[in-house]
């Protein structure tokens, strides 16, 4: 590491030296740092929180505690620095050189043979381990993380229609409701002794393996019901879809309320515990992100964008606009249904009131906060919105006055959302691909 000779002294120089030290640190080193912070929290967090008078371990880095007892701000600051900042920065600093070499894959023969998906998988596993340790601290964190996964799937699937297809769908909650109920019925019928559906059909040990099947069936059923919306709505463009999806939502909600054996407005419970672990939700979320990313970068995705920008022109370029719109909308419905099924099994109790306009508005807020036409934007928007809504939880009712104000300000400052029509570069997913490219561009020697 070269340090420039004209580094100013004092506080400013100190900062500059720090920035230089961390400039070329690869993401994998940051992941190691985050892991160190999470482990530090598990080791000393409880005791330190007690010593500093924070009570139990703060759930969101002490941020929500600020709104409960502002007098504790200095203590929270000390806690955050000792437990998170110092271990994270320190561990990152220690492993930065090793990880940089590891990332570039030079010199180690067996590392070069790892395909790029292996590299991605390794990093994802790393992310999962961090989240796992972080969530192990409390059930509340675990719940928030799992719901975050569900919301990411929902936001992404909505982005496909509202972003890439350029329509305005509001029926996320309606699709969720269908998926949630179908998945719940299947699982309860199969694995739970229930008054309505009788004794369990299959041994309970099969439940974790049947759950993905149930989710896929739930998504498929949702997509089939979405046909009722899709077929009439693609004759015209514009806001037509908004209205028809709104009507769909009212119909679904009202229909569920009228089906007595599902509990009607009282709700439906007793789902088996198959989504208790973070891993299940994490895998589904990653799968959804991966598939969505592939979808929008594929020819089909480009065709969808073409339909958005100019439908007649797309038609002239041999794009089957009807098919493209149909596939995009049904994919949206499918994944919303899957997310609904996941949601039902995470919460363990669903009622029609869960799937109202408020839910749709929430997902729309996440989507437009992150930005349209952006996979990373959707993820970022969901994470920020969820964090915000958890941090502001101590404000209770006022939370729902603060969040709209923040969203309005963001929309005024950045009308296309934080990452609208652009992707955040994720080097830890790209580096290996770049390295491969370099290799393939090199003259063929052997």
């Amino acid at each position, binding site marked *: 590491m070269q340090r420039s000779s004209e580094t100013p002294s004092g506080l400013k120089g100190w900062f500059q030296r720090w920035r230089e030290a961390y400039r070329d640190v690869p993401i994998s080193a940051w992941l190691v740092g985050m892991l160190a912070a999470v482990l530090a929290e598990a080791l000393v967090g409880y005791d330190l929180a007690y010593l500093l008078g924070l009570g139990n371990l703060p759930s969101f880095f002490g941020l929500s505690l600020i709104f409960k007892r502002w007098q504790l701000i200095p203590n929270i600051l000390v806690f955050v620095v000792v437990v998170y900042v110092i271990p994270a920065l320190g561990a990152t600093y220690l492993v930065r050189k090793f990880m940089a070499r590891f990332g570039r894959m030079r010199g180690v023969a067996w590392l070069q043979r790892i395909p790029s998906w292996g590299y991605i998988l390794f990093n994802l596993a790393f992310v999962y381990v961090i989240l796992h340790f972080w969530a192990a601290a409390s059930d509340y964190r675990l719940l928030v993380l799992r719901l975050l996964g569900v919301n990411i799937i929902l936001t992404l699937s909505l982005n496909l229609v509202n972003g890439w297809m350029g329509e305005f769908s509001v029926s996320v909650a309606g699709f969720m409701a269908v998926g949630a109920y179908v998945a719940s019925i299947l699982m309860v019928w199969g694995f739970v002794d229930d008054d309505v559906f009788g004794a369990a059909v299959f041994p309970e040990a099969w439940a974790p393996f049947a759950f993905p099947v149930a989710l896929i069936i739930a998504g498929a059923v949702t997509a089939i019901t979405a046909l*009722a919306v899709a077929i009439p709505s693609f004759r*015209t*463009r514009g806001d*037509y879809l908004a209205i028809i999806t709104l*009507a769909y939502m009212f119909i679904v909600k009202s*229909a569920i309320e009228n089906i007595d054996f599902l509990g009607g407005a009282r709700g439906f419970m007793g789902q088996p515990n198959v989504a208790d672990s973070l891993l299940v939700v994490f895998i589904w979320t990653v799968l959804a992100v991966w598939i969505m990313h592939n979808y929008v970068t594929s020819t089909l995705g480009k065709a969808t964008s073409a339909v958005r920008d100019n439908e007649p022109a797309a038609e002239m370029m041999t794009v089957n606009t009807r098919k493209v719109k149909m596939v995009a909308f049904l994919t949206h419905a499918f994944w919303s249904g899957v997310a609904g099924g996941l949601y039902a099994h995470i919460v363990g109790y669903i009622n029609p009131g869960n799937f109202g306009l408020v839910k749709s*508005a929430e997902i729309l807020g996440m989507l437009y906060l992150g930005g349209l036409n952006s996979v990373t934007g959707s993820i970022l928007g969901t994470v920020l919105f969820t964090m915000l809504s958890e941090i502001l939880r101590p404000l209770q009712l006022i939370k729902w006055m603060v969040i*709209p104000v923040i969203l*309005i300000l963001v*929309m005024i400052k950045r009308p296309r959302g934080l990452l609208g029509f652009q992707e955040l570069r994720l080097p830890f997913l790209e580096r290996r691909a770049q390295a491969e490219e370099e290799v393939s561009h090199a003259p063929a020697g052997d």
Partner: protein
Amino acid sequence: MSQVAQQLFNALQWGSFYALIALGYSMVYSILMLFNFAHGDVFMVASYIGYFVATVLLGLALGGTLPFSGVVVFVLTLLLTMFLASFIGIAVERVAYRPLRDAPRASAAITGLMVGIFLETLVLWRLGASRRNFPSLIEVSTFQIGPVQVTNLKLLTIVLAVVLMVLLHLFIQKTKVGMAMRAMSYDYAVIPLMGVPLDLIIAFTFALGSALAGAAGVLFGMAYPVLDPYLGVLIGWKAFVAAILGGRGSILGAVAGGFLLGFIEILVAAALTSTMRDLVAYSIVLLILTFRPYGLFGEEHSVRLRL
């Protein structure tokens, strides 16, 4: 037979509520090509304003401070509420729509939605979740028209709604501001070149729509004297569907759609059970929109995109 006629009046009453609110959606859509998603909550806030105005005026009248009878109090409440509600409309436009006029329409829809949530929470926070009882301003009496019994409130609602609609029609057709509004719905881009103050006309349109929602709020409060902060979600969104059913941006369509939705809902509730109301009503709406995608009176150009 008398049962049907009886329900007819109920349907007309509900249709009046829907139509008055739907007009606000439609007018904004016709000039800005976007749905004012906060309008339902404007209606909710307006009915609360009506509640406070009515309570204060009634208190003054009963206390002898003001020499008013109940009817005068009602008229004053109606006018004052409409006046105050129009300012909420202007504020909503100022906060949620004016800064985003050149932005993608969907972004403006989101800000509208967020303003709606803000208003709901504000009312919930300041006034509590407990339901408020709207004071009765006019003594309820029942008329016998042939075999049908009608309360004077129902008749008042229907007559007033029709009067307001006629006034609105005259305003849009006969005055200069109305002409500017019509012109704006015809071609948004050219209007500023003709020397029409765009901002003023848009603000005025919001004010007009909100004033009508205010009238609906007072009438609704008198007919169903329980107010809660989710009134906008319950009634407003249905009025939105009514506006679409009638045809986007069409004034006549909003009225027709409002009454049609009222008829569908009441008749379904009367013929089947009331829990089936939403299910059947919106299935019918879906069916109508399948065959008439632009609504009853909508035109194809009214759905062109201005992204």
